[in-house]
């Protein structure tokens, strides 16, 4: 192999995904997260630090390009060359990394025809920090695509690659040559969704709620996506209401700064004034910037002129841009821009005819409508209307959480459906907990309901 020509003289390197794949099933957040983890593979063991930035001056500019993209190294359609990166140096393209947008980029895919983006990114970032190709069979720096390399969160570089990068930059202080560093949860990074896979039977931990059988503690639209909270967990739906994962994520692992012992949240909403996210639990609330808590929180809900005891629901009504808080049969109207409660509140719920007077939570959605959740049902209120739309309530599980009729009645019915195809339904609210102890859920993962 050839010796490395150059290396970075600085240790803090910025990166940015400048252009995203155009026709890929991978969302932008997933692409960013995969880039983050592919760079982290290298920074875990060297003194290099990578930071995602927004501007055009990133050291490592990442692009998805097709054919000739004016760097002298045109791509060649599907197959053939799939990516390249520029070695470190003083040239303005040093570190830049290009992926062929004609490839079918995949992540955790069972499709053998796709190209695993994480595996290729780890390889290309090896070039971007100075490594050349090597013939060693185990090396990630072999020039040939060798398929997926497993979970990005657990990937460990082959020894050959560690040694070569240590020769360039040395060993990260916290790392012994034989140990993999502990993962840090303090840095701000893109969230890597657990995409649904094609397994048909998934073990279900008993303490993990089932999305098809939950009445949710809180529901919120955050940055255009829907979040459904239940206990210590949440589910996330993309802007087009695609469920990111059938399995819930743990709240405290994503919303960093909430107490580890927090067993649930009462209400969540995104503030329209500054797009910060507010979590309520009991008498306290937390304000998040992105997914990190702000300094000085939790604070008492009396900051909002709310009485002790907390709230059941919170949402911002698109019609007047005011925030509504709900507790039992009462509601308050709050001006987030002026940071004060409007006079004359609390008032008796409900303001909107046809919705329950006691709510689990509510949210505005990108279609302009407001959605109110109670038990296993939800109600839709169009735009500035003061009455629930006809045909509601509907099933939250079916319309939002990608559950079938049977699933929406509880996981015990999923098992029964898979086995006996009984089709028997239990009435809403009549879920028999003892029958969900089978320990398994059966999911088709192919439902396109609402997606």
């Amino acid at each position: 192999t050839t010796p490395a020509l150059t290396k970075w003289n600085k240790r803090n390197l910025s990166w940015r995904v400048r252009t995203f794949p155009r026709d890929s099933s991978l969302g932008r957040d997933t692409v960013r997260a995969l880039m983050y983890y592919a760079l982290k593979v290298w920074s875990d063991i060297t003194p290099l630090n990578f930071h995602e930035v927004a501007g055009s001056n990133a050291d490592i500019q990442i692009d998805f390009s097709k054919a000739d993209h004016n760097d002298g190294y045109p791509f060649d359609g599907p197959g053939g060359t799939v990516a390249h990166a520029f070695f470190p140096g003083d040239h303005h393209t040093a570190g830049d990394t290009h992926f062929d947008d004609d490839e079918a980029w995949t992540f955790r895919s069972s499709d053998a025809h796709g190209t695993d983006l994480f595996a290729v990114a780890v390889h290309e970032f090896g070039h971007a920090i100075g490594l050349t190709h090597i013939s060693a069979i185990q090396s990630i720096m072999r020039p040939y695509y060798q398929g997926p390399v497993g979970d990005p969160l657990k990937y460990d570089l082959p020894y050959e690659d560690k040694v070569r990068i240590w020769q360039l930059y040395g060993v990260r202080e916290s790392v012994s040559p034989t140990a993999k560093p502990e993962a840090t949860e303090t840095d701000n990074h893109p969230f890597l969704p657990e995409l649904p896979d094609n397994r048909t039977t998934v073990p279900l931990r008993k303490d993990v709620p089932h999305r098809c059988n939950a009445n949710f503690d809180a529901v919120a639209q955050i940055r255009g996506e829907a979040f459904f909270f239940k206990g210590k967990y949440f589910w996330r739906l993309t802007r087009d209401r695609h469920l990111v994962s059938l399995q819930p994520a743990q709240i405290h692992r994503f919303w960093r700064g909430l107490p580890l012992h927090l067993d649930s949240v009462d209400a969540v909403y995104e503030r329209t004034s500054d797009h910060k996210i507010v979590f309520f639990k009991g008498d306290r609330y937390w304000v998040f910037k992105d997914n990190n808590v702000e300094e000085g929180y939790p604070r008492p809900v009396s900051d909002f002129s709310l009485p002790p005891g907390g709230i059941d629901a919170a949402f911002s009504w698109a019609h007047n841009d005011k925030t509504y808080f709900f507790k039992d049969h009462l509601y308050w109207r709050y001006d987030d821009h002026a940071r004060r409660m409007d006079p004359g509140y609390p008032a008796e719920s409900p303001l909107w005819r046809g919705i329950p007077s006691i709510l689990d939570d509510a949210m505005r959605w990108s279609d302009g409508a407001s959605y109110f959740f109670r038990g296993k049902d939800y109600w839709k209120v169009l735009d500035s209307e003061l009455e629930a739309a006809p045909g509601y309530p509907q099933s939250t599980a079916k319309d939002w959480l990608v559950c079938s009729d049977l699933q929406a009645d509880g996981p015990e019915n999923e098992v029964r459906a898979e086995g006996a195809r009984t089709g028997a339904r239990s009435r809403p609210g009549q879920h028999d907990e003892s029958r969900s102890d089978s320990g398994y859920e059966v999911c088709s993962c192919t439902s396109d309901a609402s997606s």
Partner: protein
Amino acid sequence: PAPRTEDLSLGVEWLSRFGYLPPPDPVTGQLQTQEELAKAIAAMQRFGGLEATGVLDEATLKLMKTPRCSLPDLAVPGARRKR
């Protein structure tokens, strides 16, 4: 059997592209010698984990058609360099 003309052409282009052969001289258009080509194929085979026969056989062609990184494997004097 001798490689087909199109395979040979693909092989030469591939070997030049990834650093195993110097690119053709644009002025003289000089062709690669058989000896140079065999050496380049053998180098490519060694690097790719194949038996270094120097012959453009099916396994070698298959490896050449495997998706890969655009960067060259070897820095050949006179070959275009990424950086």
